[in-house]
Structures are given as C-alpha cells and as structure tokens.
C-alpha cells in the first residue's frame, strides 16, 4: 500500500512538454530517498489544463503542481513527499490563497465543470485495468448482462436523452433501436475515433486517459443490438491513444471482459482496432465503414443507413468516442440522473477543446446550456493581453462563429444551429479583435478543399471555386458581386453534396458573411483588412516623426526592403516588403505601424 500517489499527466499535451522526463526523474529521486514503496507514481490521461503542462498532482492532499520542470523534482520530493511541506511557489497559483491552499475543484477552471465523459481522465492510470474497475468500471456491463434485457438498455438511453457527441446530435438510443430492429446473422458496433476537426482533441484525451470506458460502452451496445464484433477506427496520428488502446484491449481480453461468455451470460463480444490513414472524410460514417472494409475511404449515399446496411452490408451502429464514454455512467446512475443535466433538448454535458486567444487552453466539460460567457470568461480565464472578444468558432470546418452579440447564448445543439453554427465535435476557438474573419473562413475552407475526397462534384469543384473567390477578397481583387456569387455557391454546395463534409463545408463562410459582412465589404471596397491580417492589403509604414534613425529595422529586415542613413528617418520599399512584421516588432520607438 502506498501512502501517497503522485499523478503525472501522460496526455498528449503534457507529453509534448516533457512529462515523461518528469516521471523518470521523480522515480529516480524517490528511490534515492527510499520512498519508492511509500509513494506511487501514476501516469494518467489528460487533466484538461493543457496550457499549464506538465501537470503533477500529489494525493491525498491534492496539491496541484503546474509547469513542472525536472530540476524542481528533487525539491518536491525532499520537501513535500518526505517532509510534508508543500512547495507553494511551484503550485498552480490559482490554488494558492493567503489563507492556505484551495482545492483544485474550487478553482475557476474546474469549479463550473462537470466531468462525466472525462471523469477518469487524469485520475486513473489508463494502462492498469484494475484502476478502472476500482472506480466502478465494467460494473455497468455486468449489470446490463445480468439484469437487463436489450430493450431495457435501449429504453434507458432513450430516456436519458443522450445525443451523438460527434457533431450531428442524433439521439443515440434511437440509433440503437433502429439497428436492433433489423434482423441479421451478424451486426457490428463501431466507434468513430477519427477525430479530425482542427483544434478538437477530446476523443483523443478520452482514448488516452480512459480507454476501457469506450470498450465497456461498445460491449453494452453489442448486447443491446445483438452484435458480437466491434471496431474502433482510430487515427494513426494518435500514437499514444493507439498504444494505450492496444494495452487496454489485451488486459480486457485477459480478464475476459471481452471475448466469450462475458460474466457467464453467454454473451460474446470482441473489439478490433483499425487505423485510419489521415483522411478527414473518414470521420464521415459511410466513408469510415468503407475504409474499415479495406477500400478507399469515400462516402456513399444514404439510405440505406448504417442501421440497415452498414459495415460489410450488415446492420451497424457507429458512435463517437465521447458518446460512448457517457454510457456506462448513464446505466449506473440511471437515465433521470443524466436527463436532469442540460437543457430541454440537449441533455448531459459536452466536452469542449478551448483554443485560440484564451488563457486556459485545454479541455473542459460543462453541462449543456452553460452560457458561452461562462466558458470563456470564467472557465477559460478570459482573453489575454486585455484584448476584446470578437467571436468564437465552434464545430471546426463544419461549423460557424458565434459573434459578440450572442455572447450569453446557452450552448446546446439547437441554439448553435439556430445562430448558424453547430456543436460539431466540440472545438471552440476564441478570436479577438486582431483576427480577420475573412481569413478565418479562408483557413477552414483551405482545410476542406484539401480534405475533400473528390467523389462528388459540388464538394470537389465547388469548394475550390469558393476558395478562389475568398482569395480574391483577401488580395483586394474582388468586386461586390463576388459576394453574391459566393453566397449562391454556398447554398448550392450545401444542397447537393453527397456527404456531411460537403454539406457543411460552406458553414464557416456563411456564418462569417452573416455576422461580419461589413468586414468582407471593407476588404473589397476599401482594399483594407481592418484587423491587419491579410498581407496583400497591408503595408508597413515608418512614421518619419518618430523614427530616430537607429537602423535596427534595416538590419532585421530579411529582404533588405528598408533603407536610410544613421540618425535620419528610414523608408520601407513597398515593392520589396514581404510583410513579415519583424521591423515593427523590433522598433524601440514605436515608429512603425501597419495599415
């Protein structure tokens, strides 16, 4: 038995900031002090506060060390773990108050969160199945197999109001019900772990931090619809997730929680992994199944829906990682418990990946219906450098933006659709006054053009034409009629594309045009980018009054575009200038501005 557990985050964020080295140093240092049998070092999944990584929590007192460096470890071991004196200066400063140390759950970042899908992330060691069982894992599966009928399970999900967390928001119970109704000799349960939206990483964190929750839910799904085989389709770009899934899979099979006759109920279920090769379109359900079958990942028309003819032509259900992670908890706590959270038509919680211009970059799980303002100002810690909030982008390349006039909107599926965005998988990118909305729309469209599979013309050709128009706008070559053309094209592509990728690709453009049309028009009419982002419409100018002639700018210019003599005002040759901004950054007198 250990008297203290030191949890070190092994999520992708903290791994990239060096948590493995922290863990090794910690183990070595503990051994040096002879504490290795008293203090256990546990590698966990993501805690959510990625901006402060590497993260380390010492239990039982729950001291939260942030941005830990290897050279701090000897002090923490000596002072805290040996002598019991918390090293306050290395703690997450939010938890340090004049009267003592605040519990982590009382900090602004965690206080308003409610962790269901992420409940084990950052708490258990994902590579030890016993830890998952210790927090109630596989109990829901046991209950389902020994006490419930498949119809009971489906009814529970219907009553809970759970909707798909991958973006569409289709009721999960209904999906299962349809698949159950279709008789077949073989059915399949698939897990969509092909998370591809730029900026979204909640599925990755769940796979890395709590893989068994996904297995358990898939087995429950198998029992409910009558399937004996599951597939997890995971991106090969998630090496840590793949590795932990493999370890977890071996452990679950070893313990016979997957395999034949689970819990002596006569129910067989096994799971295999399939690695995606990095195509965004494979996150679309029909393309994903085509890819599992071993073919080129391209979507096909629906109907038939997967519940009728899915993988290998058999009835199939496909749910997203986060959706699955909620299910064991719904079974254990009952549908009423889940339905009590959230709004009228969106129940439970949703995980968001906060990114962009925000203090606390990371993962947050909030009850549906939480106002955007709370997420950004309180949980996210607001916008850095005193800048003003301009818009938040949700739903990645399929979504749209939420402008400042909707800052108090309660976030749920229907509200977001109403204002022209969508929940999507839960990426939430915050933009401030320095961001150009045309540029943002262009960024997402570039992504879609790159990722369009090419099967249907509206998406393949249409998105390309849209991008060309946006290029004209940002280069100052567009005319006002181009905006009408762009809008027409948007609706055409939405209506005529084969799959979700094309049908939603125009959303970022439509929503920015709706809320920031004036910004588009300024680009066209005045040939100016109000936020100073679009390079073609920008020039750097030296204010002759302020310039002291120190020559620093001329020396840093990578293209020798600045000329002038010592102690005399310098001049930028606009033809040579590449608009890198190096001169403005270096100028000590604030003499260089852009317009």
């Amino acid at each position, binding site marked *: 038995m*250990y008297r203290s557990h030191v949890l070190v985050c092994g999520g992708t964020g903290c791994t990239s900031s060096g948590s493995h080295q922290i863990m090794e140093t910690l183990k070595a240092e503990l051994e040096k002090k002879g504490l290795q049998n*008293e203090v256990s070092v546990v590698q966990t999944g993501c805690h959510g506060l990625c901006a402060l990584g590497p993260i380390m929590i010492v*239990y039982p007192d729950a001291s939260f060390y942030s941005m830990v460096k290897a050279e701090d470890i000897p002090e923490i071991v000596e002072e805290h773990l040996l*002598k019991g*004196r918390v090293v306050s200066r290395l703690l997450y400063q939010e938890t340090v108050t004049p009267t003592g140390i605040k*519990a982590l759950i009382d900090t602004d970042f965690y206080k308003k969160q409610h962790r269901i899908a992420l409940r084990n992330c950052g708490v*258990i060691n994902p590579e030890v199945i016993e830890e998952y069982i*210790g927090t109630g894992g596989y109990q829901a599966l046991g209950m389902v197999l020994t006490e419930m009928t498949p119809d009971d399970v489906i009814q529970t999900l219907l009553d809970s109001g759970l909707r798909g967390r991958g973006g569409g928001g289709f009721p999960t119970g209904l999906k299962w019900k349809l698949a159950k109704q279709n008789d077949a000799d073989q059915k399949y349960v698939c897990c969509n772990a092909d998370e591809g939206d730029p900026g979204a990483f909640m599925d990755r964190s769940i796979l890395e931090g709590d893989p068994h929750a996904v297995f358990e839910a898939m087995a429950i799904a198998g029992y409910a619809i009558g399937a004996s085989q599951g597939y997890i389709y995971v991106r090969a770009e998630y090496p840590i997730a793949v590795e932990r899934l493999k370890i977890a899979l071996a452990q679950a099979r070893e313990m016979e929680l997957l395999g034949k006759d689970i819990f002596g109920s006569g129910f067989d279920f096994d799971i295999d992994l399939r690695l995606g090769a990095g195509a965004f379109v494979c996150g679309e359900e029909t393309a994903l199944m085509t890819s599992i079958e071993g073919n080129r990942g391209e979507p096909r028309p629906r109907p038939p829906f997967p519940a009728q003819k899915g993988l290998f032509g058999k009835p199939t259900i496909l749910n997203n990682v986060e959706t699955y992670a909620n299910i064991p908890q719904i079974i254990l706590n009952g549908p009423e418990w889940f339905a009590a959270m959230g709004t009228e038509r969106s129940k439970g919680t949703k995980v968001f990946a906060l990114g962009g211009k925000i203090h606390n970059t990371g993962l947050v799980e909030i009850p549906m219906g939480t106002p955007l303002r709370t997420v950004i100002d309180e949980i996210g810690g607001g916008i850095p450098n005193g800048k003003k909030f301009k818009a938040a982008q949700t739903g990645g390349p399929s979504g749209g933006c939420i402008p400042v006039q909707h800052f108090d909107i309660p976030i749920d599926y229907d509200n977001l659709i109403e204002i022209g965005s969508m929940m999507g998988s839960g990426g939430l990118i915050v933009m401030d006054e320095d961001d150009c909305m045309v540029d943002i729309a262009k960024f997402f469209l570039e992504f879609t053009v790159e990722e369009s599979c090419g099967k249907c013309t509206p998406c393949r050709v249409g998105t390309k034409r849209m991008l060309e128009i946006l290029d004209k706008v940002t280069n100052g070559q567009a005319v006002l009629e181009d905006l009408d053309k762009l809008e027409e094209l948007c609706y055409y592509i939405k209506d005529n594309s084969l799959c979700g990728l094309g049908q939603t690709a125009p959303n970022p453009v439509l929503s920015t045009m709706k809320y920031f049309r004036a910004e588009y028009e300024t680009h066209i009419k005045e040939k100016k980018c109000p936020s100073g982002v679009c390079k073609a419409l920008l020039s750097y100018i030296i204010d002759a009054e302020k310039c002291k002639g120190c020559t620093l700018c001329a020396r840093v210019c990578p293209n020798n575009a600045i000329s002038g003599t010592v102690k005399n005002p310098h001049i930028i040759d606009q033809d040579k200038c590449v608009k890198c901004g190096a001169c403005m950054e270096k100028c000590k007198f604030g003499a260089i501005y852009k317009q």
Partner: protein
Amino acid sequence: MKSLEELKAIRDKMQGQVGLRAEDHTQTRVVVGMATCGIASGARPVLNTLSTLIQEKGLSGKVAVTQTGCIGLCQYEPIVEVMEPGKPKVTYIKMNSDKASEIVERHLIGGHVVEAYTISAADIK
C-alpha cells in the same frame, strides 16, 4: 470475468487505493508531523501504518492521511492530528505503529477518541 462477484472483489481491493485520489470537503484529515524531529522519532512507520490501514479498511474516500511539517512540540513527536469536520481537533502524541492502528480502530472507525494518547492526557508543564 465470469461473475459479478469476481468484479466486485477487484473493485473492493482497488477502491481503497484509487479512493486516495478523492477531493472532498467532508473528509476527515489525519495529519502526521513529518519534520526532521518527527522522522527522527519514528513518524515514517506511523504514517505508513495509518495510510495502509485506511486503504485496507476501505476508508480512503472518507479519511485522508497527509503529512505536515514541525508543529513545535518536538519532544512529543511523532504527533498525529485528527481533524473531523465540525469537531475539535484531536492531537495524539508519542505515536508508534501499534498505537496508530489502535487509533484507526477505535477513533476513526469506532468514533471514540483514545484519550490516553492525546496531548491533553499528557502532563505538559
């Protein structure tokens, strides 16, 4: 896994250990003085006994065993303080492993303060 009992056995065994990671305001806190004076007079085995017993008895969700520095009463070390929510703090002095297990049994489980080991029972001049 062939039965729910099997699962429960693993769960019970692990719950005490994972429960150590609970964060709860209603927890009882058991604090062991682990400064140089405490360690020199044998606080380590006391801390380990307390921590192990709490986990074995499945109490780790309710009781947190932590450490602190020097309390200033070095001649009475090892010192163990028990802080239950809403009750006055109890300070036990001159602890050892056996006394610590008695405190777990009688105080933390049974609910009776072991007066004989408390600082108020000692003759402090």
